[in-house]
């Protein structure tokens, strides 16, 4: 809400600089988004009369005029052409400071002296119009300061009104609030007007939908001067408040809306057929609105119609049929209250938000209607010589009355943490418009109907708290009796992150949104369950429609962006959620929907729920278990990493580091100590350099180099890319240690080179050797060889075996164990001992 300060001063007296006002509002009421200044900030503007007006002799587009300023006649060069001798104009004198930062000086323009400047509406802060010089009414006296007629400068507070305070969407409400903050008085002008116009009753009023329209008042004002424009003071206030002045009648309705917060609509009575009908729109009903758009309505939407056609989408925007225009002399003024929720929904469905709908959607007070209707009637008579009908058609079946709310002083202290006195509670609530009765240990406030947000004790306590000032609340720490800490799982996630960072990876946090392109880029099969995506219904763009089912594509896109920035490569990881869509079985749909909208409580009502709920469906409380929650979306925490391009550039002592399978696998081994690895076929992974990661029987994820086609699909050509993605549950970067006895006798190390069929997985050898001998303490590979020295299809693998016994081992004992191992490996894998 933009509040011009000169307007505010109509209702409340204050002498507080704008900066202090901003602070006061921020600390006691609403946030202030900004302070704007319009017109002349400092200096003088006087009324001048043009005496001569001619073309500038030396410039085609300039004019020169002689202007009488009362005390002297000055020469002014102007760019505008709309002047004529006798025109009264505002002249800003040299030395004045304009809102756009210009400081006016005497000037010479193309050889002629120019004294001051004649001003356009925009320069004076009256409107956006910069077409020509503002021509003042002839009643303005030559030589008098313009401030005698209206302010020449304006300061506007842009107040960010909270949704629970529709009363602050009008200047009067803001004035009441300011008066309460300053502990001063405020006043509201008493509307006065004469009646005697054509009767409203010549038209009908029928409200068909009570529940969407609690109040609807209609009053006719006739005999208006057609084509009247609003006076400058009104136009400049409308402009300063952020709206566009339109015409006298429309400006009067907008002015009163800005003043009271109550939107008002005026119909051209001559165009209304029969009367006003408030009804639901017909399905598919179309209206051509004032902005030229054609809107298709549905039966949930409320329409203000006459007996024949829809005239207005209630509370949102009018259609062209019955709008006022330059010939309008007879209007029906609508001041109504609509269901806020309905207006909000209509506005959202149509994607159409207006000054009116923004106010209605917050739920207005039906009792605002009376004052607003009188006030606009007043302006229509004073501005356009209208005559107000004696009768008003009013639909107000359930008048709203003020309500009583008790407030215990002790409760206020218990919530605010500071004692409040009964007098100050009474004073503060009174200043907000409440009537307050004092009882022994509590007060009872009768809340005015425009404060629909004050229904409970706690609401009043908040009002008292903010008005007395939250700086009065002391600072205390609670005596917490619970024990804090991270759960084991949370500690593990934190450690995992730390380990990956210590290994040298950079942590990324990426959007979970992705395009359809991802699944195709990864060449996932049509039946792949990772194509079962949860989708956003209202994404910001088509690229952000799906919720990721894997971390990988987001990381690849990030790598591609880095490549585009001419990065040489890098390694990064993300710990984040992945999502999968799981259809709710049809028989569960009602239960699921009830749960989504009403929670557990809703399910209690649906007694059948617990009996019928098949296993595998959960309320999602844990959120991270792999069961379908009622939301239909599974989510799981994953860790994923990508090492792409040159992870680390070479140095004088190290070669450049590009990650291959064993580099990335090494990280996985660090994170999942008991992991086993089996070859895996994933469409996006290198068919020969990828593995499934398991712990026991449980799949933990995958690790591998990317398939070159996937690399290309993500525009990472020429970059080696290795990646992994793991379920966090079985990651254990720092397993709980268990002490094992060790002996101090020397171990014996033996080297053993085996010729093996090249297809034999070394992992199987290691696994199989483990446990073959109680003396074998360690087995390590120190060399791998294929080439001319070994037969084709074979490989030579060299192991170092460490034997450790309770006592020093004899050569004989070691030999015996070694032979046992060799004979086992020969039998099982066809291993031959090389070069012995």
């Amino acid at each position, binding site marked *: 809400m933009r509040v011009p300060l000169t307007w505010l001063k109509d209702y409340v007296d204050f002498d507080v600089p704008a900066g202090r006002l901003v602070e006061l509002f921020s600390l006691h009421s609403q946030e202030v988004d900004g302070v704007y200044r319009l017109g002349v900030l400092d200096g003088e503007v006087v009324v001048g009369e043009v005496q001569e007006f001619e073309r500038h002799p030396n410039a085609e587009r300039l004019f020169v005029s002689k202007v009488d300023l009362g005390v002297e006649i000055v020469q002014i060069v102007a760019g505008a052409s709309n002047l004529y001798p006798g025109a009264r104009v505002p002249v800003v004198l040299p030395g004045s400071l304009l809102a756009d930062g210009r400081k006016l000086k005497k000037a010479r323009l193309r050889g002629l002296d120019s004294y001051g400047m004649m001003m356009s509406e925009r320069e004076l802060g009256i409107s956006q119009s910069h077409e020509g010089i503002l021509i003042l009414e002839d009643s303005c006296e030559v030589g008098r300061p313009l401030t005698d007629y209206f302010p020449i400068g304006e300061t506007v507070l842009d107040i960010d009104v909270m949704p629970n305070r529709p009363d602050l969407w009008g200047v009067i409400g803001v004035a009441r609030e300011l008066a309460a903050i300053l502990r001063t008085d405020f006043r509201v002008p008493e509307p006065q007007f004469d009646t005697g116009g054509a009767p409203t009753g010549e038209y009908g009023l029928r409200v068909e939908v009570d529940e969407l329209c609690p109040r609807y008042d209609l009053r006719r004002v006739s005999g208006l001067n057609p084509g009247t424009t609003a006076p400058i003071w009104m136009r400049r206030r409308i402009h300063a408040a952020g709206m566009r002045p339109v015409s006298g009648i429309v400006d009067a309705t907008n002015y009163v809306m800005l003043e009271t917060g109550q939107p008002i609509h005026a119909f051209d009575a001559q165009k209304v057929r029969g009367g006003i009908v408030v009804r639901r729109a017909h399905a598919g009903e179309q209206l051509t609105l004032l902005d030229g758009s054609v809107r298709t309505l549905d039966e949930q939407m409320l329409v203000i119609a006459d007996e024949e056609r829809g005239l207005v989408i209630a509370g949102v925007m009018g259609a062209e049929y019955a709008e006022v225009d330059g010939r309008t002399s007879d209007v029906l003024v609508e001041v109504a209250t609509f269901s806020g929720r309905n207006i909000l929904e209509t506005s959202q469905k149509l994607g159409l938000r207006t000054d009116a709908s923004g106010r209605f959607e917050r739920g207005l007070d039906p009792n605002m209607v009376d004052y607003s209707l009188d006030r606009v009637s007043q302006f229509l008579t004073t501005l356009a010589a209208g005559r107000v009908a004696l009768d008003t058609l009013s639909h107000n079946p359930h008048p709203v009355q003020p309500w009583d709310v008790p407030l215990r002083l002790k409760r206020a202290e218990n*919530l605010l943490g500071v004692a409040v006195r009964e007098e100050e509670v009474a004073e503060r609530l009174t200043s907000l418009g409440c009537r307050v009765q004092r009882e022994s240990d509590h007060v009872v406030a009768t809340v005015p109907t425009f404060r629909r947000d004050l229904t409970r004790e706690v609401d009043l306590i908040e009002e008292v*708290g903010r008005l007395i000032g*939250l700086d009065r609340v002391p600072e205390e*720490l*609670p005596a917490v009796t619970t024990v804090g800490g991270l759960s084991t799982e949370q500690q593990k996630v934190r450690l995992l992150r730390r380990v990956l960072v210590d290994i040298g990876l950079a942590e990324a946090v990426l959007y979970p949104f992705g395009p359809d392109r991802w699944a195709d880029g990864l060449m996932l099969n049509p039946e792949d369950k990772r194509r079962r995506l949860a989708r956003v219904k209202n994404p910001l763009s088509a690229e952000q429609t799906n919720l990721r089912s894997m971390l990988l594509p987001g990381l690849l896109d990030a790598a591609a962006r880095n490549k585009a920035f001419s990065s040489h490569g890098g390694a990064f990881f993300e710990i984040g959620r992945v999502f999968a869509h799981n259809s709710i079985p049809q028989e569960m749909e009602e239960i699921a929907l009830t749960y989504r*909208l009403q929670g557990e409580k809703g399910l209690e009502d649906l007694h059948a729920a617990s009996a019928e709920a098949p296993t595998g469906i959960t309320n999602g409380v844990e959120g991270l278990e792999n069961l379908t929650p*009622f939301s239909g979306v599974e989510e799981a925490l994953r860790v994923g990493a990508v090492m792409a391009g040159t992870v680390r550039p070479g140095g004088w002592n190290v070669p450049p580091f590009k990650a291959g399978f064993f580099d990335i696998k090494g990280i996985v081994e660090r994170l999942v100590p008991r992991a086993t690895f089996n070859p895996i076929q994933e469409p996006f992974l290198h068919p020969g350099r990828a593995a499934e990661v398991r712990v026991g029987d449980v799949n933990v994820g995958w690790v591998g180099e990317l398939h070159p086609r996937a690399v290309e699909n993500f525009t990472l050509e020429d970059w080696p890319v290795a990646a992994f993605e793991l379920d966090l549950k079985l990651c254990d970067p720092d397993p709980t240690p268990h002490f094992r006895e060790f002996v101090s006798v020397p171990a014996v190390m033996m080297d053993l080179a085996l010729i093996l069929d090249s297809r034999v997985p070394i992992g199987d050898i290691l696994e199989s050797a483990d446990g073959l001998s109680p003396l074998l303490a360690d087995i390590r590979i120190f060399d791998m060889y294929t080439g001319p020295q070994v037969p084709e299809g074979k490989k030579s693998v060299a192991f170092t075996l460490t034997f450790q016994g309770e006592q020093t081992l004899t050569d004989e004992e070691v030999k015996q164990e070694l032979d046992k191992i060799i004979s086992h490996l020969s039998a099982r894998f066809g291993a031959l001992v090389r070069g012995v």
Partner: protein
Amino acid sequence: MTAISRIEELKAEALTALTEARSTAEVEQVRVRYLGRSAQLTEIKKNIRQLPQEERPVVGEAANLASRKIEEVLQSRLAELSTAEREARLRAEAVDVTLPGIPFPKGNMHPSQRVIDDVVDFFIGLGYRVAEGPEVETDYYNFTALNIPPGHPARGMQDTFFLDEGVVLRTHTSPVQVRTMLTHEPPVYVICPGRVYRRDSDPTHTPMFNQIEGLAVDKGLTLAHLKGTLTAMARHVFGEKVRLRLRPSYFQFTEPSVEQDVSCFLCDGKDPHCRICKGAGWLEMGGAGMVDPAVLEEVGYDPEVYTGFAFGMGPDRMAMVQYGVPDLRLFFEGDLRFLRQF
């Protein structure tokens, strides 16, 4: 020439040779020449039996003394020279110590995560536990249970991503509070960090961002406890000198509702061109308030017995302030030029 004088002569020669020896190798040569198997001194010793009986002990002793003397000087000379030689060798092995070492590069923790861990640790110290919940939420937990029923204008304040009827991406971490209260009896002290989603995108808003919310419900909690807790947190994060102020605000699930501002830790409001607070003197930290009685009732707590406070803050924005990052969007693009700075 007598044997004795020959011995003395050899000894003198040997000692001179040792003095002149410039390396351990030369010393070794001296040893061979004067003490070796075919050395003259050795010859003299071997041939001692051929000498007259009475000369034997004298010559023998002289030869032994000479050998011992030579050996003694030789050892000391050897030690001297080998020390010098090792020093010389080490000097020759000198490297340019200004060359970089073998890299064990530091990785990078996301700036928001740094702030989250810091804040979480602070609250753990106060006795809070960490609660988490799903990012895909139901309408009930994200809105209704928080006193934001269908059609409420407050729903319009949070541009929501919808997945299905009654299913949204959570717009705040507040549903975690509800889930916690529904499954725990008071006292409850939890801190809830997590990613949240709003349909908004410009330099200061991203469709996803991090949030940290805290919730305390116990007997006798007041706004003063909220203020004290937030002040302590602000001092932990921004330094002991900062002050906290509360401003009125509006949230459906708290009443009274407040905004928390922290005084600028850099200029304390004294610099109109401050790069941190832009001259405002205050940094907006987020919303807070006393848990609305309607919310307490919704989860089955008696609001006449228990009161509570809740607060929220944006770790991304805190990181922007702490590390001087101008654009929020940088946080979520995976740009290594950004990530590697942390």
